[in-house]
């Protein structure tokens, strides 16, 4: 489960990338929500965008990446794979900036289908 959260705590994008093997339904959402406070605290104290694993719930980990403009990328996963996740975040970040640079881009209408395809390709390459 992967989620992009905007500056004002608005979810911008959500995708199920199969990074948690066990079927846990909507528990994902709660786990990410619970980790948000920790992410904000760590982001304020670290110059790195990639914050590694910020939270843990039983066997499920939460990794986060916070951009300069405080857009948070959060990934819920059940296996440790720090480098892969870092590369995945960087790839998504790059595509995210490209989407934001588009003057016609509208956060309310959300990301277009090419963005979605790119995120899923990145997930295939780095996470699975």
């Amino acid at each position: 489960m992967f989620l992009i959260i905007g500056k004002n705590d608005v979810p911008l994008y959500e995708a199920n990338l199969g990074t948690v093997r066990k079927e846990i339904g909507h528990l994902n959402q709660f786990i990410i929500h619970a980790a948000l406070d920790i992410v904000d605290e760590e982001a304020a104290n670290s110059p790195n965008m990639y914050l590694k694993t910020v939270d843990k719930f039983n066997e499920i980990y939460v990794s986060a990446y916070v951009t300069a403009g405080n857009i948070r990328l959060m990934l819920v996963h059940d296996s440790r794979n720090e480098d892969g996740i870092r590369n995945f975040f960087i790839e998504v970040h790059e595509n995210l900036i490209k989407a934001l640079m588009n003057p016609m881009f509208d956060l309310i209408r959300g990301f277009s289908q090419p963005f979605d395809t790119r995120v899923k390709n990145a997930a295939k390459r780095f996470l699975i």
Partner: protein
Amino acid sequence: MKRTTVYDRNLKAKREVSVSAFHFLFSEIVQYCLAKANSDAQELERQLEELGQPLGAKFLELVCFRDRNSKKDINIIECLRFIHGPLWKTLFNKNADELEQNTEEHDTFMISEKEPSLCNQFACLPKGDDYLNCGAFVAGIIEGILASANFPAKVSAIFKNDEESRKTVFLVKFNSDTIDGNY
């Protein structure tokens, strides 16, 4: 046939825009705002600032990614240095002229730029508006950056006349709670 999208472009390739193209567009923007503001100078500045703000947020993301290898600034001074250096270079291909802190009010910083600066170079405004500064657009960009980096501040562009030269000073006044937490 495969459609090319914005995602196929290279983000790190720097592109330059000719000054004349910029001035052509910017003069139209100013005229448009002037008509909308009924020639009220303060209203015009406010509109220019408003146009600049969303750009600030985008530039922060872009320049951090391009030049800083995905590191970000976590305190006010670093963020201002970033604006003074890398950001100014991206926007105007040079560093800003000066960055100072007000000696009396610690929440106030000044970034100054010698005239003629890019936005005021060809500004020819109605009489009586001698305090109007088209740099308000750049002030809006700075404000957008700081707001996006979680250091909300009020930025205004003002003229300052020295003996030798004329300057535009971007006065950055941070909200009091921003200063308390980060300084």
